[in-house]
C-alpha cells in the first residue's frame, strides 16, 4: 500500500518510514507538518495517510483538522491518526466516516497489529485504540445490558469495537473463527444490535451502543 507519513519528530518519522518499508509497503511521501498535505494526497494518491495529532505550529489539533480535510476531499483515502494520549473529542466525528483509525503512538511497537490496523483503515475499515474502547466498556452498571455479557463476550465486543474482523479476532484470541462467530452472534443479540457482515457498520453499531450505554451511566 502507498503511505504518506506526517510526523514532526525526525527520529519517529524515520522509524515509521522504516516500519512501513520493512512491512513491504511503499512510503510515497513524508513531511514534518500538515501544510500542503492536501496537495500531496492529491498528487501521490496514497492509500493511507499516517499523521500525528499534535504538530507545528501550535501543537494542539493540527493533525485532527488535517485528517478532517483529507476525509472531506478524498473520502477513499484512509487516515490513521496517532496520538500521545487519548483525545476522544477529535475522534467521535471522524470515526463515522470509515477508513479512519485512531491509535496511541506506542501501538506502533506492536508491529504486526499496527500494520494490520493500518491495512484495515486503508481498505475503508476502522481502527480504534483499545484505550478508547476501554473507556467505553469499563465497569458495566449492574442493571445495564453489558452486565449480561460473559467475560469472553465482553472481550470480543471490545475487539469488534476496535474494528477487527472475525478472522482477526480469532487470530488475536487464538480460537477458531467459528467460535468467534458464535460469540459475536450472542453479543449482538444480547445487546439488541442488528447482525451485519459489513465490518465498518458493525463497528459503528457497537460504538453507538456503547456511547449510549455510557451516557446513561
Amino acid at each position, binding site marked *: 500500500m502507498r503511505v504518506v507519513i506526517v510526523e514532526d*519528530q525526525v*527520529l*519517529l518519522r*524515520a*522509524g*515509521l518510514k*522504516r*516500519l512501513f518499508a*520493512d512491512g513491504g509497503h511503499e512510503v510515497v511521501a513524508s513531511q514534518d507538518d500538515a501544510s500542503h498535505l492536501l496537495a500531496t494526497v492529491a498528487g501521490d494518491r496514497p492509500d493511507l495517510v499516517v499523521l500525528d495529532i*499534535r504538530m507545528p505550529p501550535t*501543537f*494542539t489539533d493540527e493533525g485532527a483538522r488535517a485528517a478532517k480535510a483529507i476525509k472531506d476531499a478524498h473520502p477513499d483515502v484512509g487516515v490513521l491518526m496517532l496520538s*500521545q*494520549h*487519548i*483525545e*476522544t*473529542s*477529535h475522534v467521535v466525528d471522524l470515526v463515522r466516516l470509515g477508513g479512519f483509525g485512531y491509535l496511541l*503512538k*506506542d501501538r*506502533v*511497537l506492536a*508491529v504486526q497489529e499496527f500494520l494490520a490496523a493500518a491495512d484495515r483503515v486503508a481498505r475503508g475499515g476502522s481502527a480504534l485504540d483499545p484505550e478508547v474502547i476501554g*473507556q*467505553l466498556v*469499563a*465497569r458495566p*452498571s449492574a442493571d445495564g445490558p453489558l452486565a449480561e455479557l460473559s467475560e469472553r463476550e465482553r472481550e470480543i465486543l471490545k475487539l469488534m469495537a476496535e474494528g477487527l474482523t472475525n478472522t482477526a479476532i480469532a487470530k488475536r484470541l487464538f480460537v477458531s473463527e467459528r467460535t468467534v462467530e458464535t460469540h459475536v452472534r450472542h453479543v449482538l443479540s444480547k445487546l439488541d444490535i442488528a447482525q451485519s457482515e459489513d465490518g465498518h457498520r458493525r463497528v459503528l453499531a457497537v460504538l453507538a451502543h456503547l456511547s449510549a450505554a*455510557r451516557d446513561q*451511566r
Partner: protein
Amino acid sequence: MRPAVTLLWLLTVAVASAAAVFLVLGPGRPLPEDLFGGISGAAWLMLALAYATVGALIVSRLPGHGVGWVFTALGLLIALNGLSYSYATWGLYARGGDVPGLSAAVLGGLALPIAPLMALSLLLFPDGRLPSRRWRPVAVMSAVASLGFVVAAVLRPGPFDVPLDPVSNPLGVPGARAVMDALNGACWVLTCVALGLGVRALALRLRGARGGERQRLKWVLTVSTVVGAGTVVLMGSWFLWPENVQWRMALLGGLFIAFPLATGIAILRHRLYDIDVVINRALVYGTLTMLLGATYAAIALLLGVALGSGSAPATGAATLAVAVAFRPLRARLQDEVDRRLHRAGYDALHRVAAYLEEVRAGTAAPEGVERLLRDVLGDARLELRFLLPEGGGYVDVRGTPAVDAPSDAREQTPIERAGTRLGMVLHDPAAQERPDLLPRVVAAAGLAMEIARLRAELRRQLDEVAASRARIVAAGDAERQRIERNLHDGAQQRLVSIGLALRHAQHELGPEAAVRQTLEGALTEIGDAIGELRELARGLRPPQLDDGLAPALQELASRAAMPVAVDATAERFPDGVETAAYFVACEALTNATKHAHASRVSLSAQRRNGSLVICVADDGVGGAAPGNGTGLSGLRDRVGAHGGTLRIESERGAGTRLIAELPCGS
C-alpha cells in the same frame, strides 16, 4: 518703592508729632465749634497714624498695592490737617495771631480731599485694582471731587469758618463765595455717590468671591457697614444734642480707625479665620470673667453680710464656687458662643460627633467619613487619600490605589493623628464657605479616618494575598502543563523512536537470530515505560483539559472504579477555573473510592449565577470531616485562589457532597 513709603511714613509721624505739640499747647481757652481740638484732635491724629502705618505695611509687603498708597496718602493728609488746625487755633488764640504763615496754614488744612480718597480705597479693596474697567468713572469721580474740594477751599473769599473766622482767605476770588460753596456741596454729593458705589463694589465682589477672598470681603464690608452706621448715628445725634461736639468728633475719629485696621488685616493676613477665633475667645472669656466675677462678688457679699465682711470663710467659699463653676461654665459658654457665632461649624462638629457614635455602635461604616466631610463642608469634590504604611502609596476610601498628586487645583491638607501621617484631604478651597472648619472637622473625625485607613490597608493586603495565591496556583498549573507537554512530546516520543529502531533491528536480524528475544524484552520494557510516562503526565494535568472541562470529566469518570454519572456543561471557562474544577472532581472521586466506599457517584459541573459550580455526591458512608487530609486543604487553596468556596456536606450514613463554587465572571 520701599524707601519712598518709609519716608512718607516718617513724614506723617513727624507731622503728627508737631500737631500733637500744638494740640497740647492749645488755644488757651474754650472755642466755639472747636471740632478738631483737644480729645478730638488726638483721635484724628491716631487715625492719621493708623492709615499711614497700615498703608506703609501694605506697600512694603505688597509693593504697588493701590490701597497701600491711598492709605499712606490719607495718613499724611489727615496728619497735615491736624497740624494746620492745631497750629492755627494755637497761633490765633494763644498767641493772638502773632505767628508766621497763619492764613497759609489754615488754607492748607482746609484743602484736603480726605473723604473721596476713602471712597477710592473701598473701590481698590482687596487686590489694589479696580473691579473692572467699568468702574473707572467712579475712580474719576473721586478724583474730580478731590480736585473740587481743593479748588473750592482755595478760591472761597472772605473769612474762614468758625473758629478760624478772624482770618480771611488771601487767595479768595471776590464775589465767588456762593459759587465755591456750591462747588463744595457738589463735591460732597460726588463723594457720597462714590462712597456708596465703593460699598456696592465690595458687595459685588463678595457675590463672586469664594473661600478666603470671600472671608476678607465679608470682614471689610461688615466693618465698613459698622463704621457707616456709626457715622450716621453720630451725625444724627448732632441735630438732637448739639453739645459735646469735640467728644462726638473724637468718637468719629476713633470709629474711623477701625476701617484702616480692618482693611490692613484683611489684606495682610492670608487667612482670616483666626480673627473669628479672637472674637470667639474674647466673647467666651469676657463673659466668663464677668459671670465668675459676679458670682464671686455675690457670694462674698452675701456671706460677708452673714459672717462679717472680709471673713476668710466667705472669701474661701466664693473662691471655691468660682473654681468649681469654671470648667462647666466655660464649656457652656463656648457651646453657646459657637452656636450663635459659628452655626455651620457648630453643626458640623456635632454631626461628626454623632457619626463617630454610630461608628462605635457599629451602625455606620468608617468609610462613610468621606461623604460626611463632603456634606458638612459643602464640598462635593472633597476626597480622602490614605497613606498606607511601608511605601504602600495613597489609596482612596475604598482602598483602590490613587494618584497622590491629582492634576486639578484642589488643595491638599494633610491628616495627622498622634504624630502619624494618615493621609490627606483633597478639597476645593473655593467651594467652602469656611475654610477654617476643615482642620477642626478633620481632627474631630480622626478616629473614623484612622479606622477607615486600617481597613483599607487590610483590604489591600488581603487582595495582595489573594492575588499572590492565584499567581502561585497559575504558575504551578503552567509548570504542570509544561512538564506534561515535555513528557508527551519529548521522552515519550523518544522512547517510541527507540522502540521503532529496535523493531527495525529485529527485522534486519531475521527470524532466526537469538538476540530477537533480548530485543523483544527491551521493547516490552519500553512499552511499559511509555505507559508509566502517560500515567505520570495525566496526574500532572490531564491533556483532555485542552478540549474543555466536560471531556476531561468524562475521561476521569470512565477511569473511576465505580459508575460515575457526569452532567457537565460544554461551556468553556478560564483555564485556571477549569483546572481547579477538574482537580476538585478528581479529589472527590478519590475520596469516594478510598474512604466513602461509595457504589455510585454523580458529578455535575454547571454555571450558576456567574459561578462554575462543581458538585460531587456519593452514596457512601459519609462523615467526612473537612480539613483533615492534605488533599482537601490543597483543594481549598486552589479554589480559594480563584475567589471560590469549597464546602462539604457529609452526615454519617448519608453520603458525601462536595460542592465547589468558582466565580468565572458573567
